[in-house]
């Protein structure tokens, strides 16, 4: 409908909020936090075969200052947790986190004194990805879920202290007003 009015009249009306969110979700630059074998699948996701650039996320930056989403791909032990947290702190707002694979999400097979049993213990996680390691399709699915989440939440004035979980049936952002 909006496109039709754009073609017919040369302009469209929408909310600024929606435009900002639309821009953000389609250019999520990842911080590749590749710390074990999941990183290989993450690299495959960037390859032409799976082509993460279809979702505007091909610009992997190795400095946190230019990143929007941190993909934690691998086992995080207690010593590494400080590093992950520091890099997360250096990323500018707004920022999101994808916890890729069993290890990052729950410690995975490393049920041991040295491995953090889930990175949500020290950083807020937006999307958890299952798999050991996850297939590239699964990571892309997580990215699409994150895009949906970004489109569904407010663009500004949002505290990042607590993680926001996607409910099974998310409520629409704009509710129909009774006549």
């Amino acid at each position, binding site marked *: 409908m909006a496109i039709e009015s754009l073609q017919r009249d040369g302009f469209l009306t929408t909310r600024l909020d929606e435009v900002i969110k639309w821009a953000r979700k389609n250019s999520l630059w990842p911080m590749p936090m590749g710390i074990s074998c999941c990183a290989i699948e993450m690299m495959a996701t960037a390859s032409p075969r799976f082509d993460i650039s279809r979702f505007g996320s091909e610009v992997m930056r190795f400095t946190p200052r230019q990143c929007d989403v941190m993909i934690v791909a691998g086992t995080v032990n207690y010593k590494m947790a400080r590093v992950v947290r520091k890099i997360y702190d250096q990323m500018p707002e707004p920022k999101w986190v994808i916890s890729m694979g069993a290890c990052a999400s729950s410690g995975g097979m490393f049920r041991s*004194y040295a491995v953090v049993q889930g990175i949500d213990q020290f950083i807020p996680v937006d999307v958890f990805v299952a798999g050991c390691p996850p297939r590239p399709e699964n990571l892309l699915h997580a990215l699409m879920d994150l895009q949906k989440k970004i489109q569904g939440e407010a663009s500004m004035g949002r505290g990042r202290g607590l993680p926001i979980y996607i409910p099974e049936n998310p409520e629409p952002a704009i509710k129909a007003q009774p006549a």
Partner: protein
Amino acid sequence: MNNGQILDKLKGRYPESIIGSDEFRGDLTVNVRKDDIVRVGEFLRSDPDLSFDLIVDACGVDMYRPEERFEVVYNIYSLKNKRYIRLKVRVGEEDPTVPTVTGVWPGANWHERETWDMFGIKFAGHPDLRRLYMPEEFEHHPLRKDFPLMGIPDSLPLPRR
């Protein structure tokens, strides 16, 4: 040189330092008195016939018994003779201190640091006895048998969320 000749030579030089020996499938193991490990090692390395010049590994074992609880195992290789020898030293729990062999084989440096980190065995005279794996401020030794698998709660701080 075969294992018997190596053992004879070692026993001939330091009869009181060698507590026992064992051979299993061609591998010679020699139990050495704790305080003599440095001079036995020095002899093994510098003797032109033996020439055990490469330390392959040094590690700890927790036998979890009342006396002489820990064991330090050194795997030494002779590039000249293409032979291995394994040295074992036993040490008690009250004062788990073994003289360092970094002066004999500098390669033992990190192996001894790992053994200190994991078992809490100190190496007297080690140039840089810091933990190798665990954070500096960690107070326990994870590969001891009485250390719980999932660790001790709050012993490893996480960054604040």
